[in-house]
């Protein structure tokens, strides 16, 4: 009970520190970008301006959230070691797991706030231009949040074993590969080469497959989702997040904090 309370205390102050930094200005700028781009694009489009607006809105939301998750995640723990605030924290009755979870929940709170602001703006613009909100749009927004959470965990995981620049680069590489893998599997070149197909299958098991949690195409082209697809996407993102969390906690518990 005490651990849960302390996790929330650390999360609260991490969130407060992040919120008071310039990141909030970035979120507001991204919001303005969504409004401007959606408006300009809808003006230049014939037929379905609301779809174009939603496309841009969800695109900015994804890039913004993943960007915040990766860049903030890369320094979330390392900065604590470099500035020695970590020593101040871990010399208190706080376990390493509680500290780590608190920090991550703090950043997740910021991502949730950004999702709320940017998601609401995107959907509002879509509605203003004549679109109708359905479940798929809401699920899509939630999955974008989970995608960012997954990117944050990957970055933190890398940041514990390498420096922050390298962890950003590795996460971006995994993020791009994770999105491309769904398309790659369908390539004739891959289908004709069982070895490559097996390699991609193996890659999918070990590394995150972001294409599994990306339902933007279904939203934009109004295609109904296969039965259970959203559920599976949520289960996959959650399971992979727990797997990463386990790795992060194990590494951090044994890390030499010098």
């Amino acid at each position, binding site marked *: 009970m*005490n651990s849960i309370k*302390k996790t929330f*205390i*650390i999360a609260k*102050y991490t969130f*407060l*520190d*992040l919120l*008071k*930094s310039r990141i909030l200005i970035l979120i507001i700028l991204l919001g303005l970008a969504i409004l401007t781009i959606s408006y300009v694009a809808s003006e230049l489009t014939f037929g379905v301006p609301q779809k174009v607006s939603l496309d841009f809105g969800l695109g900015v939301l994804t890039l913004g959230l993943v960007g915040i998750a990766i860049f903030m995640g890369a320094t979330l723990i390392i900065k604590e070691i470099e*500035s*020695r*605030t970590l*020593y*101040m*924290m*871990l*010399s*208190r*009755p*706080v*376990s390493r797991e509680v500290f780590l979870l608190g920090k991550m929940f703090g950043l997740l709170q910021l991502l949730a706030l950004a999702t709320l602001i940017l998601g609401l703006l995107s959907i509002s613009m879509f509605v203003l231009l004549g679109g109708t909100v359905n479940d798929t749009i809401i699920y899509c927004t939630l999955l974008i949040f989970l995608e960012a959470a997954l990117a944050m965990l990957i970055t933190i995981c890398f940041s514990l074993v390498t420096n922050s620049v390298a962890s950003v680069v590795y996460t971006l590489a995994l993020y791009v590969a994770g999105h491309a893998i769904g398309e790659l599997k369908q390539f004739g070149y891959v289908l004709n080469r069982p070895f490559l197909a097996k390699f991609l299958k193996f890659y999918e098991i070990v590394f995150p497959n972001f294409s599994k949690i990306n339902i933007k195409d279904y939203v934009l082209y109004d295609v109904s989702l296969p039965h259970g697809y959203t559920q599976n996407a949520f289960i996959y993102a959650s399971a992979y997040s727990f797997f990463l969390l386990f790795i992060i906690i194990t590494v951090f518990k044994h890390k*030499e*904090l*010098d």
Partner: protein
Amino acid sequence: MFDFINISKSFKTDFWASPFTALDDISFKLEPHTITGFLGANGAGKTTCLKILLSFISPDSGSVIFSKSLGSGLKRFERIGFFPERPYFYPDLTGVEFLEFMARITNVGKQVRKKNIELWSEKLKIDHALNRKIRTYSKGMLQRLGLIAAIIHDPILIILDEPMAGLDPIGRKEFKDIFIQLWKSGKTVFFSSHIVSDVEEICSKAVVLEKGKVLYQGNIDKLLLEAQNESSIWELKTNNYTHPIATHNPCEVLENKGRFQFHKTDLKEVLTYIQEKDIEIQSLTNVRPSLEEIIYKIKS
């Protein structure tokens, strides 16, 4: 409060380099209710010791045994206050938010933390800046904030890593007064420094580290007394007698104000000379070397 037993630690600077030994089989003990100075030059291994003590890093061999009065497991950290070297806290939090944060994760109740924040911030003259963001604080203010954070939960063992580094003389004096105050209220204070005079001024005990080995541990007064007894230099203060003393001129005239220093072997001759010339003397004392001089002597 704790026993540091046969601790060794080596580090690798890079993959191919052979490891260098930071701590070499060191042992020392911290007595309760003392102010102990942890002395050593830069790179002597003081911070490494403190990191091992607080389980930030693990030793290659040896162990740390804490006194039962500190409790066990995470509970122990409720009774320990730590101040890291050159701290830089969350820059976008205000001073009061940071102190609240530190107090809350150490299970300090609302009333007590409010009272302690007020008390210590006034004592350390930082109360006027508590509502400002930490990024606007000067180095001295950060040190003061760090010290409050380290003692806000009323710990019984206070460990400070170079707490006075970068402070101006007034700040150093204030910190030293607070350490004495904490010690008088029954706390154990253990602080690292590379400035010997600070330790000599307020500590009753010292642990001296040199290149990863313990050079000395024990009472400072005892060390000073022993050194004084061994000292071969005597100082004579006269009532402004400015002429050379003794026929063989064994004395060194200091500042030409009637102060003379001479070697123990010349004592008899000097005393005879004083008697013969009927020189009025103020004092004749065995010169006490400073702790710094003693440490240099031990090193060499």
